[in-house]
């Protein structure tokens, strides 16, 4: 390897009570795409913050172009050509694309006045460099997430950038947008710029990177060319154990009355004449592109689309599904896609969040009983293996995986007969993910819960579902048996749908 752009030698970073990074050797070369893999708390974010100068480290050396540097600060990092694109992009929705692009330059030049023509010129330059076309006069708030990300990338590349750090850049993108992003990242590499990529999605890491570095508990546990890695090897390195990837098999009575019988369900133009059965103990996957109508279908089953047409029978009883309370009463639970805005009360305690949907189980007379609430919450915490010692802790302070377990645990308290999961492990790390999957399977097998799982994560569906429904433009195209199917079979199926 040529002289690395940035190199860390034996870097240790301590926080009170823990070592966030422990004697890390790390290097990234020009024109290299390096992926950082690791669970939450493995030290990836700390590493990014050290490389971008936000954190000072306690031991070790940082070298730029082979020369040791002391007192590395954010300013020094920017001067060295390090640019970070955070998950929230740090853009301004009210300002135009041109202004967002030009603002950094104008500020660093200490300008007082803003000329729209100059903003447009600087912005056009920045976009031309990436060879993309976005309306410079559009307000950033009116752009799609993917376009906003491109604006953020274009802005980051306006200065003399040599290393671009991207923190989970694909989280909010659809499949096609991810491909466009990857093409862009490869073009950036072709210009000699190094890209440090942080992702939870292993498939993407394997597709885009030249090299992979795996972190666990503040240590670098594996490193090597991407060609040496498989998903299983990354998972093993990240978690330190082999997670069983045994597929889910369903052994029920196919002739029995299905738990949920959906016939001719339509929701406006989004869902058209959908019919399917869901039996007790089944885990049925629902796959399809964004906008295929899968979320609307789930919402209709949860009583949030009162305008739907068609019939839904639960254990043979017709449901009108005109409101959420009605669906909950009937035994349908829905874990939404965006747990931040649709599911959890972040500033409230775990206990309160857990009982939120089953308040009647924690009352004494007309009043809420603290004792009953705590008891229920503690049982759920144990049941879902939520990592906390205190049910009074704020939910916002838990990791993504644990938050997701709180939501699932909450719905289990309502005694559901049908559980609808929308992206059950989005933004959750591998270990937590396996734990959530284990729990869902257990519920299906032991309690005979019928599960409908919507996910973009194809391996997740393949491993946990006994059937996969493929949805496109509001209709169910196919009912697949995952046995004998591989990831690529489904991916190529999804690609043909575009």
């Amino acid at each position: 390897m040529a002289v690395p752009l940035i190199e860390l030698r034996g870097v240790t970073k301590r926080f009170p009570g823990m070592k966030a990074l422990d004697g890390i050797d790390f290097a990234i070369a020009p024109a290299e795409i390096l992926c950082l893999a690791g669970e939450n708390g493995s030290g990836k974010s700390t590493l990014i913050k050290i490389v971008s100068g936000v954190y000072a480290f306690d031991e070790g050396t940082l070298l730029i172009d082979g020369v040791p540097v002391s007192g590395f600060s954010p300013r020094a990092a920017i001067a060295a050509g390090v640019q970070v694109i955070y998950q929230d992009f740090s853009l301004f929705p009210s300002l135009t694309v041109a202004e967002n692009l030009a603002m950094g330059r104008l500020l660093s030049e200490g300008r007082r006045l803003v000329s729209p023509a100059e903003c447009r010129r600087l912005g056009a330059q920045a976009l031309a460099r990436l060879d993309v076309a976005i309306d410079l006069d559009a307000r950033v708030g009116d752009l799609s997430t993917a376009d906003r990300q491109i604006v953020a990338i274009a802005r980051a590349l306006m200065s003399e950038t040599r290393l671009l750090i991207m923190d989970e850049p694909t989280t909010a993108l659809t499949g096609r947008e991810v491909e466009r992003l990857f093409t862009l990242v490869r073009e950036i590499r072709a210009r000699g710029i190094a890209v440090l990529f942080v992702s939870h999605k292993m498939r993407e890491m394997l597709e885009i990177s030249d090299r992979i570095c795996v972190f666990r508990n503040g240590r670098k546990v594996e490193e090597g060319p991407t060609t040496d890695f498989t998903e299983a090897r990354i998972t093993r390195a990240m978690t330190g154990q082999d997670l069983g990837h045994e597929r889910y098999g369903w052994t029920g009575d196919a002739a029995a009355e299905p738990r949920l019988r959906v016939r001719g369900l339509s929701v406006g133009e989004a869902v058209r004449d959908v019919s399917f059965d869901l039996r007790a103990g089944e885990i049925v996957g629902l796959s399809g592109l964004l906008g295929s109508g899968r979320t609307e279908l789930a919402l209709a089953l949860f009583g949030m689309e009162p305008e739907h047409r068609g019939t839904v029978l639960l254990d043979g009883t017709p449901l009108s599904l005109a409101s959420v309370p009605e669906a909950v009463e009937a035994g349908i639970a829905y874990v939404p896609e965006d747990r931040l805005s649709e599911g959890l009360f972040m500033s409230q305690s775990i206990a309160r969040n857990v009982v939120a949907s089953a308040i009647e189980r924690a009352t004494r007379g007309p009043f809420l009983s603290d004792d009953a609430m705590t008891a229920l919450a503690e049982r759920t915490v144990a049941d879902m293996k939520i990592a906390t010692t205190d049910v009074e802790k704020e939910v916002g302070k838990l990791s993504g995986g644990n938050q997701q377990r709180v939501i699932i645990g909450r719905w289990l308290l309502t005694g559901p007969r049908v559980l609808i999961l929308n992206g059950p492990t989005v933004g959750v790390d591998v270990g937590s993910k396996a734990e959530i999957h284990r729990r869902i399977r257990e519920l299906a097998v032991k309690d005979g819960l019928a599960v409908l799982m919507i996910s973009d994560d194809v391996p997740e569906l393949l491993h946990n579902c006994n059937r996969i429904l493929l949805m496109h433009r509001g209709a169910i195209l196919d009912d697949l048996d995952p046995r004998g199917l591989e990831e690529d079979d489904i991916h190529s199926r999804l690609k043909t749908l575009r």
Partner: protein
Amino acid sequence: MMTLAKLMRRSETAVFLIVAAIMVVIGLINPAFWQADNLFNLLRANVIIGIMALSVLVVMISGGIDVSFPAFAAAAMYLTVLAMNAYGHEGVMLPFIGATLIGLICGLANAFFIHTFRMIPLIVTLGSASVVRGLLLGLVGTSIVNIDRMPPALIAFGRSSLDIGGAKLSVMVFVYLAIAGAVWLFLSRTLTGRSIFAYGDDAESAKRVGFNTRRTVYVAYGLAGALAGFAGLLHASMIWLANPRDFVGYELDVIAAVVLGGASIFGGRGSVLGTLLGVFLLVLIKNSLIIMRVDNTWQGVVVGGVIVVATALTAWRDRKTLA
């Protein structure tokens, strides 16, 4: 290039169309509405509310809210008029600078508390409004300065008008439009002005990109206070009266006008043009109610109703674009 579709989606267009529709209807009911005298009077009635609305607009874009401007306006006006009388000052330049400075200092005090202690703007400005009004009435006095004791220079300034085809158009309308133009230039063409939008969008990101967000907050509230102080004295010169209890209840009308003009209470959105139209719409509605001899109490019902409907419409539109 702004296409027609884009133009139609702007809230300014909607407000403009509503204004035009109302004017046509009133004109049909009472053709005297279109007489130059009446229209000029209408414009004159925009001036004070309008300058105050511009002051609130700046704060609202930054993601805050200001309910202290009526108190600041009253204090700046009353103190300046008393000082003019005490020193027998004959000019108007210096008094207007003084009133503006009094407002500016009050506004900077707001900014100090909001920025240093990360306090909620509504609470800070409610508090400062109460303190300023209390001090004014308690320490300075409660007696109204009537026309007989008003500084003649001030009255003369407030009366100055242009003769256009026999009708008199107050020069104050031009003062108002000049201020609007200046605020527009400031908001759209200076980096500090843009930083107010950026700060209203996302304060953290604004800091990350390199804006001096402390200055942004001080400029936003300082400017708001200064405009309020100026408007206060201008009001006294236009009505030939300085009442320390003036401007009570202006909060509702002014904030209503700004919201009608399309500004978002959550920050980041709002325009000078929209605000001017919002003010015009509000004044138009209130004036027509007076012409139609609608009782004062019922005017409140109409103004409140207009606010609720207008905000409901914008919220509905925003939700539609999100979906």
